[in-house]
Structure formats: C-alpha cells, structure tokens
C-alpha cells in the first residue's frame, strides 16, 4: 500500500444518502411528510418527542391490523411456527460513502421507540448486488443515549415493565396505571412477539447498535427490521446514522476478505429412539418445527430425510423468515423437490430469485397453489407474473404488496385469474386496465382487496364504483389515500348527473381513453348505481385520507354497517356529526374506529359511539376532536378500550403521560 493509504483514520457519522427499499410508509408517494426521505436529512425532530411530519413513519403499528380477519385470512394457513422471525417492516439504506470499519448504527427514535428487531449491513459485489449480513438481532445487547447525553447499556431488551424505564428517570405512577387501563394488552396477547409491552420508555432516544468487530468488510448499506406490534402508536424515526471510521484521505480502501462466522450449534444427545415412532406422530412433531430445524432434523439420517421431507409436510411453505438465505440453488435443488402438495407459499421479502428457479418452483406447485405471497419482491417482472398466472390458475390469495419494480403493464396477465378471493396490491403501479376486468371476473368471490397508496390507478372512480356495485361478498377494502373525488354519492346509490360522469371520463388522459371505453363496454360498467345493501359481509373499510363528503358515511353505514368491525376515517375532514351518530346507530359490531383530525368529533357523538358499540377496542381521536383530558380519563376507566391521541413533537421532560 502506498503511504497515502496508511494515513490516519477519522471517525465520521454518515446521514443516509437514499433509501433503497422499504416495506411500507405512512405518507403519500411523492410527498415529503411522514416518509422515507426524512431520514436522509440531519435530525430535525430530536430531541423533541412526538408525531412529526419530518420523520419516517411506517404504515401500521400495534396489534390493530394483525388481529383483523383480513390479515388472519392471509396468515392462517402458515401453521409452522417460526419464532425467530417476527419482523414486520424493513428499510434498506445507502450511505454516501464506504465506511471502512463500522462502530455503531444510531437510530434516532423520536416517537414510540423500542421496536428495532434486526440490523444488517450490506456487502456489495462487483455488479452492484448487495448481500445482507446480520449484525444484530433483538434482544442482543445495545445501548441508548438519552437527550441529556447519558448513555445506558441495555443488556437484555426483554425486560420487565419497571426495568424498561431507566433507573435514574422518575417513573410517574399514573402513567403506568393508564398504560394498564388504556390497554393494547388484549390485542397484543394474541400475537407472538419477542418485544415487551410497552417496548420501551416513551422518551426520545438514540438507539445505538454496536458494530465494532462485527463487520469485516467496508460497507455503505444498512438494513433495519422492525417489530412494532407492541408499540403504542406509530413508530417514528428521525434519522439513522452510520458511525465508523474511514481513511482521512477518503481513498477507497482495499476490501478485506471476510470470513463469515459460522454459527456453531451443538446437538443434544437424546435417549429416545425417534425411529420407533409411527409416521403420523413423527409427522405431527415435524409440523411443530420451524423450517430450519426441520431441515436439520432431516439431515440426520436417510430415514428421517424420507419421513420428514414428505411433500405433505410442505402444504404450507413460508420462506419469508429465510428471505436472506434463500438462493436459486436452494429453490431449485431443495424446495422444488417437495412442493407437489404446496397450497400456500410465501416468498415475501426474498431477493434475486431467477426466473428459471421461480418457474421450476411454481411448476411443481402448479394447480394446487392457492396462496402466493410475493410482498416486497423487487425482482419481479412481467414474465414472473405470467408464470404465476399460467402455472397456477387456481390462486385465491395473491399478495404483491410494495412490489415497486412492476410497472402498470406488468400486471395485465393477472386478468386471467378467475378464483381470486384476496388481492393485495398496496403501493404498486397497477391500474384500471388490470383491475376492472379482474374485479369483474372475480366479483362473486372477491373478499379482500387492498388498493392503499396505489396512485396510478387512473380510473379510481370506475374501480370503486364497480367494486361497490358488483362485489357482494366483499369483506375488507383498503382505499388508503386514493383520490376518489366526486363519485362518492354514486357509490351508495345517490343518483348523479351523467354530464358529470362524462366530464370525469374526458379528464382521463387521452392515451387511456380507448382502453377505458373498450373495458367499460366489455364489462357493461354500472351506470345507474344501487345502494350497497347487497354487501352483507362488509367488515373492514379504510377511507383514510380520501376525504369523503359529509353524509357519505351516514348512508354507507345505514346500508351496510351491520357487519362493519373496522372503519378508518383518518383525515376525513368533512365527516360530520351526523355521520358519527350514524356509525353509532348502525355498527353494533364495531371494533376499530379511526377519527384522526375529524373535526366534527365531539364529546357527545363519541360518547354515543362508545355506548352503542360495546365491542369497540380501538379509537383514534387525535387532533380533530377537542376532548378534555378529564373526559378521556373518565372514558378510559368506564369503557376500557384503547384510546389513541397523538401529538406534534414537544420538548418536554414529562412525557410519560399518554395524552399531552
């Protein structure tokens, strides 16, 4: 090495340059608020604590989405326990330059901290492909830095409630009490998680993940995974810094050849003779093993290999917990051999699976495959979709959540599916040319549809109108952030002016006009709409940020509210007093209600809801409703469900109170 390269190292902290991939985000695409890009700036919120537009926020938190039928329907069949994998969201970050040796990852948590689940650093090969190496997993030791600068070392994150509050900090008893009462406990107790409830003291802090000696190669990529199902409200992160050392003259260092540490495991000696067990008992035992253990068990002897790796054992195959280790080889040479009976397959979060391996696997599953989860698979192209549709025509549950690499055209092959019951295309580029025919074809059995954050639908009104007109079996519908505009009335059967409809259609960009006209005539698009009383099973609707006009919700719940368990009206600022009263009168089964910034919410009408919806377990009344704290306290004691009220960032030492 030249003399230059051996000059001293300097310790630096990098702010992220950009976000490479993520599983979800709260904010709208293209907006700065509540979005990923917020971590690419200097800390703007810390050391304040609260709900800030300048922070990264994920789409979900807590047990609220997980415990609903719509989510359960997609996870029910994956019965094999995978206790080591509990991540729910992830983010992959690129830093501006290579760090020679890494010292820490500093996560600036400014709202509801403590959900960090795993940390990886990335190694780039010559072709720009990144392989992820895990460097930390909860509850490995880490430290937190409080805003007074004091650093606290946390040996075991899985602590008792009283331990979570650092000792020198005064714990306000009433805050703990209110935590017990205002409870997410019931919800969380139904979920397997390795985090405690609450996951951490509700104070702003920097979580420092120690990396010293763990990363034997220079890196500029970090991936973090979060399990926020015990978080009290949305988790928010101001920035994620990478601290380490690099050469002072900034020349690219020679990459150090690394030896990945192999995990050593010692097998226990057992005195029991498993070979004597009858097949069905052995089968049962194997079904309790996670996949890794099953594979290890099967490699102990040829006998067990035959018995354990029976294709019936793989009726459901969840490869998401192993997203980082699935390779083309493992798919082609191992899994493909056992997938003749696979009905439920998850490849969520996997990376770089080649078309040949993918095709091989799906060919094996073929007509048996009922459920396919491809969430966050950024290697997908139109060809993969074609393979899915051609080899597995019986698919009922399809998840393409956050597949950002697919373009609108790539979804077109999906129109051939005829057995679809559940479709999740959150935050994708799908448009009406796929959705309209697809919905119409599956109108009798479509039960769950997630179109949240799909901002390229183009004919949103047509899609929504078709859904409500023809899909009588619809159970859950997520329309988060869709621009439904003026067609609300027509959805619930209010007659509308045909000239308005013509206006609307004429505003659709000209390159889509032909397709639109063709599809409309093929489907015989509903012109006169009827009330939605035919939707007898509608249980979950999400109109967050869609801003329906006053009176719409009233009519909706009068027609189809009897089976509703979840209504999300986040930032629906025109929702009126009548709408809320109508909810209380027509939704006896209601469990979750989100009224963030609904200005018409008052003590009176919310009290109505609380009285008449005895199963209510979640109510978000942030911002809009000006409910005094005393009334809220009273309600917490009386109704014992979970009230959520968020607040903008404050710089306040006393923030253990739930409500500021």
């Amino acid at each position, binding site marked *: 090495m030249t003399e230059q390269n051996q000059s001293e190292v300097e310790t630096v902290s990098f702010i992220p340059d950009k976000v490479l991939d993520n599983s979800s985000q709260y904010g709208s695409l293209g907006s700065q608020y509540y979005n990923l890009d917020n971590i690419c700036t200097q800390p703007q919120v810390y050391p304040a604590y609260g709900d800030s537009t*300048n922070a990264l926020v994920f789409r979900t938190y807590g047990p609220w989405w997980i415990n609903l039928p719509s989510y359960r329907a997609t996870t029910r069949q994956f019965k094999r326990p995978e206790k080591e994998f509990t991540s729910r969201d992830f983010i992959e970050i690129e830093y501006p330059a290579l760090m020679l040796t890494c010292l820490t990852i500093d996560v600036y948590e400014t709202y509801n901290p403590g959900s960090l689940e795993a940390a990886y650093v990335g190694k780039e090969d010559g072709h720009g492909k990144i392989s992820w190496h895990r460097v930390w997993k909860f509850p490995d030791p880490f430290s937190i830095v409080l805003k007074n600068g004091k650093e606290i070392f946390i040996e075991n994150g899985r602590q008792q409630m009283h331990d979570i509050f650092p000792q020198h900090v005064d714990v306000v008893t009433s805050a703990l009490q209110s935590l017990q009462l205002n409870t997410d406990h019931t919800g969380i107790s139904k979920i397997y998680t390795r985090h405690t409830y609450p996951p951490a003291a509700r104070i702003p802090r920097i979580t420092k993940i120690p990396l010293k000696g763990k990363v034997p190669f220079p890196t500029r990529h970090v991936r973090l995974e979060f399990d926020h199902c015990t978080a009290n409200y949305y988790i928010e992160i101001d920035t994620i810094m990478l601290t380490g050392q690099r050469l002072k003259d900034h020349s690219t260092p020679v990459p150090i050849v690394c030896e990945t540490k192999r995990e050593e495991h010692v097998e226990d000696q057992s005195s029991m003779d498993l070979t004597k067990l009858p097949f069905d008992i052995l089968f049962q035992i194997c079904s309790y093993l996670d996949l890794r253990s099953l594979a290890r068990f099967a490699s102990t002897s040829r006998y067990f290999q035959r018995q354990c790796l029976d294709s019936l054992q793989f009726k459901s195959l969840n490869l998401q917990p192993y997203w980082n280790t699935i390779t083309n080889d493992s798919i082609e040479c191992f899994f493909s051999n056992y997938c003749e009976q696979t009905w439920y397959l998850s490849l969520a979060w996997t990376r770089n699976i080649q078309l040949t391996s993918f095709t091989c696997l799906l060919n094996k599953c073929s007509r048996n495959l009922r459920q396919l989860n491809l969430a966050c698979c950024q290697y997908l192209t139109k060809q993969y979709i074609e393979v899915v549709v051609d080899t597995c025509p019986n698919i009922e549950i399809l998840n393409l959540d956050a597949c950002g690499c697919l373009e609108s055209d790539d979804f077109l092959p999906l129109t051939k599916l005829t057995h679809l019951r559940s479709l999740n295309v959150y935050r994708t580029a799908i448009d009406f040319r796929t959705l309209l025919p697809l919905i119409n074809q599956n109108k009798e059995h479509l039960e769950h549809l997630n179109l949240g954050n799909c901002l390229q639908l183009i004919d949103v009104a047509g899609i929504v109108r078709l859904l409500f007109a023809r899909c009588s079996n619809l159970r859950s519908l997520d329309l988060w952030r869709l621009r439904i505009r003026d067609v609300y009335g027509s959805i619930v059967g209010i007659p509308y002016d045909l000239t308005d409809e013509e206006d609307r259609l004429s505003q659709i960009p000209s390159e889509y006009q032909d397709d639109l006209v063709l599809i409309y005539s093929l489907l015989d698009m509903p012109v006169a709409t009827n009330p939605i009383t035919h939707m007898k099973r509608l249980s979950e609707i999400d109109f967050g940020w869609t801003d329906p006009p006053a009176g719409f919700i009233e009519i909706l719940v009068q027609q189809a509210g009897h089976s509703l368990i979840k209504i999300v009206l986040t930032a629906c600022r025109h929702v009126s007093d009548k709408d809320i009263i109508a909810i209380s009168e027509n939704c006896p089964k209601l469990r979750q209600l989100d009224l963030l910034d609904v200005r018409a919410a008052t003590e009176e009408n919310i009290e109505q809801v609380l009285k008449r919806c005895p199963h209510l377990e979640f109510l978000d009344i942030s911002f809009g409703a000006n409910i005094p704290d005393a009334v809220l306290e009273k309600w917490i004691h009386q109704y014992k469900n979970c009230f959520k009220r968020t607040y903008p960032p404050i710089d306040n030492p*006393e923030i253990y109170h739930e409500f500021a």
Partner: protein
Amino acid sequence: MQSLAICARLVARAVSGTEAENFLYNSLLRLSTSSSIHHSQQSNRLAITPSPTITRSVHLLTATSGYNGHEDEEDEDKGHLRKKKNSPKIQRTNRSNVYGDDAFFTAKNRLGDFLGVADGVGGWREHGIDPSLFSSSLMEACKSLVDNKLIDLNPLTLKELLSKAYKQLLEEKQCIIGSSTACIVALHHEKSILHTANLGDSGFVIIRKNAIVHRSQEQQHYFNSPFQLSIHPEMKGQRLIADRPEQASITSFNVEENDCILVATDGIWDNLPDSTILEEVNKLAEPTLDNLQQIAHALAKRALDNGHDPKFNSPFAKNAKKALGINIIGGKPDDVTVLLAIVTSKCG
C-alpha cells in the same frame, strides 16, 4: 422616459417579439409610477439575456428583520388556542421564522439561494385559528423542498415549488387551516439570474445604484384583499378567497453584483414609500452581513413606526384614496417582515 420606452420596444422586438416587448415596456412604466394595484395576469415573463459581465458564480448575503404587529393580542390568542391542561404550551418546532402572522424562509442549495415570505391573513383569528400557522407551515414546506427535492432552477421552478409546498400542507395529520400570500425569489448561482414568483401583495424590489430596477406585481381581488393560497374547512354561506399556486405571477431577470434584493410583506410596502426604502438602502457602505442587518432593522423599524403613526401619509393611505376615494391618513399597523439580500461573488 418616452424615448427610452420606444427604444426598448425596438430592441425587444428585435430580440424576441411581443412577449419580451410587453415586459420591458411594462417594467419601464412601473418605474415611472408609484406602486399601484394591478389585477393579476397569468403570463410567463421571460426576458433573460445572457450577461457578459458576470463570469463568477454569485450568491446572496441575506439579512432578516421584522416585527410582530399584534404584540398585545397575540399571547392571549395563542393561549386560548393552544392551552391544554397540565402541560406546557405546545410549541411548534422551528417557529423562528415567524413575525406575527408573517413567515419567511431562506435556503441554499446546490443550484441557488432562495428567499421567501408569506403574509398570513389575519381574518382567521376570528374563527379561532392562528393565522401564522398556515404561513409558517408554507414557508417550512418550501424550505424543506428546496433543501431536499429541488433538481432544477428555471423560470417555472418557483411556481412548481409553491404548488408542491401547498399540496404538501394538505398531507399533514393536523390539518392546517388558514391562508397567506407568498413571494419567493431564487438566485441561480451560475447564471446570475433571479427567478421570482409572487402571489398576493407581498413582494420584492431590486435596487441597483440607488434606483429600483425591478418590482413585483401586486395581485389583489379588490382593495385590501390580496390573492392568497388557502385551506379552509367548508363554511357555508361565506365567500372565501382561495387562489391557486398556478396564479402566481412569475418573472426572471438578470442581476448584477451589488444589486440589493428586498423581499418583504405589505407591512413594508404599505408604510414606506420608495424614497424611504432607497434612502435606507443607500446607506449601505460595505456589503457585509452586519451592515445589511442594520439596514434591515432600520427598514423594519421605520415601517413599524410609520404604521403606528396616525398622521403619516403612507402609501396605504394614498392607495385607499385612489381605489376607494376615501380620504384617510396614517400608516397601516401590520406585521413587518424584511429580507434584505445583496448579490455578491465574494466567498464567506
């Protein structure tokens, strides 16, 4: 003046046709008359000629000053609006960019230096809404977009910036209600071009060698009702002004070293005649930050004093006479915000 106008017309026609011609002609007209109320026109005024004299990159040295025009009322109102029991007043972060209901921002990025002011419309106070919320949020949104997302700097950039910042306000969980004017200027480092966008009655002037050479165009619907961006809940039976960012009037022109750019809200324009402004700015000796700051303070102070002087024949009074025929005298007490910048190529 006349011969100059004719000459300008000939030159303009020779260069690029009627668009430029109108611009040059109108700007000359404006120089010769005092500030008057125009109705807005949607036109893209692009009259940029490459300037042979400037070869080094330029930037802005900026000083800010201002006064809250409602010192007494404000604390009460804020207390009423924001107080919740048993907790300290909830402060919005980054409130250092606010004077009363006015807000401003300054930002620098790779391509240029940006200045902006927004005058919150005080009428919202009657409805229990803090008018500074909208203006300060708009300015913060502009700043964060400049810092993070701006890729280009051309004559249309500022209108897009305003549009994006305005749309972004709708994405905030706690809905921001209110309205304000907006005036943004941006200096392109390399090309030494100042791009501007103005909606409403805030504005800017460019002062060169003790004369005003460029001025923003004021936009009003009627007297004392400027164009404004607004977000409002549906309030039946009220006619609420809600203009769109697309209606901002935009101009771009060359600037030279040592040009002074004054961006300010109507607290200045209504209370200081041009002569006073020129008088103060002329006192600038060396273009240092301290000197600029002194002058900015002086301008703000004079505007504040004039505003509270019941005998002063302010530009506001003159305009009221012209527009409504009423004979009034005195200044217009209002929030004052001054951004005074000088174009310089010197570093540091």
